[in-house]
């Protein structure tokens, strides 16, 4: 049985779940902050953008490893 396909699927799938939860919470907090203080939207938007880049770091490494397992091994 080809377990490497399962390994790649787990890496990609679990990474996607992690990123989705993290970015979803972040988006909810962004909307809360914007509703409380609408004048902060330009700042919150930039902060959201920067933190989103940090949240997706580990899932993207998982995606890279998954692609490596699928295509290079």
């Amino acid at each position, binding site marked *: 049985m080809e377990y490497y396909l399962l390994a790649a699927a787990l890496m990609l799938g679990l990474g996607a779940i992690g*990123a989705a939860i993290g*970015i979803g919470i972040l*988006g909810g907090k*962004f*909307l809360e902050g*914007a*509703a409380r203080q*609408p*004048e*902060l*939207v*330009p*700042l*919150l*938007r*930039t*902060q*959201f*953008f*920067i933190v*989103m*880049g*940090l949240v*997706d*770091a580990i899932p*993207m*490494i998982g*995606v*890279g*490893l998954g*692609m*490596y397992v*699928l*295509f*290079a091994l």
Partner: protein
Amino acid sequence: MQTGMWEKRGDRAQQRYFTTLKYQGAVLALIALLLVPFDFVVAYSALLGGLIYLVPQLWHAWRHFKNRAAGTANRALAELYAGQIWKMALMAMLFALSFVLIEPLSGFSLFAALLLMQVMNLVMQVSGARNS
């Protein structure tokens, strides 16, 4: 007046972000150049790993900061999510293309350069936010 103050803080964060990207590019080029005399495959694999990280980041940043002033919070959020989805798709495509088209490739140096870029981004953003 207060909105202007927050916009200035947003501008500073934007400057910090682009400075981080410049430093990352410089460090990546330096590492690749230093590795060339030892092993050419390792050198270009490291360069490739760094570029896989930097190109989607640059594209996403350009897209985000180009129309930063426009719209409500809901629209801003929708745009950020769309940009993030395209960034992830671009990154996954670059990974797949590198692994399929480029041979030989050193996986270790590719992922080491990618990790270095991620850690640099984390450290510079966090330390910059503390100092501002």
